[in-house]
């Protein structure tokens, strides 16, 4: 591979990064040709990746976005909303492909109305729908897409091999895409969004059509895109439970308007619910009831897990801290019962649809049912 003279090669702009941890001229940057080890610092604290200010999009008969104002920082951000809530419209506007009716938006500091091409060079996009021709191999397809993003031929091939490996496609990448499973196709779609090493990727419903295992793997991959690859992610979904595990920040839109925007820990911080299940013994034919009474005697109220699998055998209680776990252990040991399980059930993001905390606290079992 012909190597461009070092001086002519544009280097990542480090001016904005405080205290570069090492002299970048001494890093392996020079040693590995076109692709280079990424510097440890990839995002500058406090920078916003996406900003929208009263962004609206009105079609003759529908309002797709209604004065939406959000700030999205680096990291993994979930965009939640029912089908038709305006998620795809927002992505289209942010890619600079569809003008907003009013308001403005910036992506990576670039105005979507005037600098769309510059944005699309730095951003990757994974559409919701199928977008792969069945008669070419994943490698050929992704190489072609890399070149469409402006990567020179040699770099396009090298980046394609790297990216397909990172999304988990190995020998099968030389076979025609038509023979792939849904999970493999989703990986190819993800690879084409990442192949040009964007600073930000838009993933539109990446878990659509995947089985639970494939869903977990995809969510893990999305997490890695930020933690390992240093790329910020905006991922849409209509499933709240998924985003809770993956995202640093969640934006909820409904009917084109902002419902809530806050970090995942804010959503799920509050108190922790514990679910416990115990065995029955000859001494205590109804172990669950025995535990409930014993706990009540110690001043801990419990609820039955109505609506959960194994209802009637599951007890729910609110964990105040470490001591609650110890108390439960001691109570069950004193009764001579076997502890089948004791697990945390965090409050789920679905609760954002509730108006006030009081209502939520009154119905903890409802909250659990959503995520169960």
């Amino acid at each position: 591979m012909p190597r461009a003279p070092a001086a002519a090669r544009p280097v990542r702009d480090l001016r904005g990064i405080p205290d570069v941890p090492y002299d970048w001229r001494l890093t392996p940057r020079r040693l590995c040709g076109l692709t280079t080890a990424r510097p440890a610092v990839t995002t500058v604290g406090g920078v916003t990746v996406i900003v929208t200010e009263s962004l609206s999009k009105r079609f003759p008969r529908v309002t797709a976005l209604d004065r939406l104002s959000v700030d999205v920082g680096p990291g993994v951000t979930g965009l939640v909303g029912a089908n038709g809530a305006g998620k795809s419209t927002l992505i289209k506007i942010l890619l600079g492909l569809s003008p907003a009716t009013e308001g403005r938006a910036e992506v990576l500091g670039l105005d979507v109305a005037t600098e769309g091409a510059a944005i699309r060079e730095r951003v990757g996009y994974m559409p919701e729908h199928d977008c792969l021709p069945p008669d070419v191999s994943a490698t050929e397809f992704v190489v072609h897409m890399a070149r469409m993003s402006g990567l020179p031929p040699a770099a396009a091939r090298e980046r394609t091999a790297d990216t397909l490996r990172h999304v988990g496609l190995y020998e099968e990448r030389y076979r025609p895409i038509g023979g792939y499973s849904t999970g493999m196709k989703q990986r190819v779609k993800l690879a084409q969004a990442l192949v040009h090493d964007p600073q930000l990727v838009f993933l539109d419903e990446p878990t659509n059509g995947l089985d639970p295992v494939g869903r977990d793997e995809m969510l893990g991959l999305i997490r890695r895109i930020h933690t390992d690859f240093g790329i910020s992610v905006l991922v849409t979904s209509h499933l709240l439970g998924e985003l809770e595990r993956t995202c640093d920040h969640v934006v909820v839109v409904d009917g084109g308007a902002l419902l809530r925007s806050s970090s995942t820990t804010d959503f799920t911080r509050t108190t922790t619910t514990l679910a416990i299940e115990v065995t029955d013994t000859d001494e205590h034919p109804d172990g669950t009831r025995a535990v409930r009474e014993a706990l009540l005697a110690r001043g801990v109220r419990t609820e039955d897990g109505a609506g959960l699998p194994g209802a009637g055998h599951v007890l729910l209680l609110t964990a105040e801290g470490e001591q609650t776990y110890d108390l439960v252990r001691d109570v069950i040991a004193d009764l001579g019962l076997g502890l089948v399980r004791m697990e945390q059930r965090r409050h789920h993001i679905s609760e954002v649809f509730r108006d006030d905390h009081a209502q939520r606290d009154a119905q903890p079992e409802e909250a659990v049912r959503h995520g169960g």
Partner: protein
Amino acid sequence: MAVEQPLRSPDAPAGDRSRIHDIGYRGYDGPRLGRGYARRSLYSQSLRGAYGLGRSLKSKVLPMLLFVVMCVPAAIMVAVAVATKMKSLPVDYTRYAILMQAVIGLYVASQAPQSVSRDLRFKTVPLYFSRPIETSDYVRAKYAALASALFVLTAAPLLVLYVGALLAKLDFADQTKGFAEGLVSVALLSLLLAGIGLVIAAVTPRRGFGIAAVIAVLTISAGAVSTLQAIADAQGSTGAVAWIGLFSPVTLIDGVQTAFLGATTSFPGGTGAGPSTAQGAVYVLVVLGLIAACYGLLMRRYKKVGL
């Protein structure tokens, strides 16, 4: 990520430095060549695709076969001309494409849909437009690629004729002039047919419909025009023959080259039936107008497809 995994046991002799390094994710700091480069890449990929290069073996068969079918008659004519020491080639350079119009039509019908219908059918188009290239880049690259592929198809047999004519020691100046006129004519024909083929193919994501529609448009227009011309000629209204020729792509090119490129027309009624210079100007305007209209229609179509 950066996991180092010793290949041998840790207590291997010192100095043994063979290890597998999983270097994890690597960014890309190299050049990004932008829109122009992406457009050129799409052009070359589409041009190669029009001959099945870089695609499956099956998709190479038809375009290659048609290419051979285009060139073989030229090769035979050249062989005969050289062997029998003829004074001129049996066919004019400008006439060759008119004679082979069925083969050219078949090529357009098979390759225009494969160029654009696939992207529509498999919804690959949004992936292009989520990258720096714009609608105009996509349309220009696809249009230029199919026009170039057609030019290769139609100019290659002319080249065979020209080389053969020189081997047969025919007059160099004469042959070069004829060859140049032939090239101009097939270039116009390529642009026109590529535009018409792409506009029709871009309407439908179904490749089969695209093929059928292109064949239908080309054969029906050619058939209707030649029938009407024959009727007009039989009824003695020779003036109408030239005007009727405006309504099919191949007769359009025939008219242009008769008026301006020293060709003899294939219109019924003999050499005098071709358009006059004034009529020829109309022919040229119609050809250029059609090419522009095709480009405009494609742009409009892809503005809508977008994301």
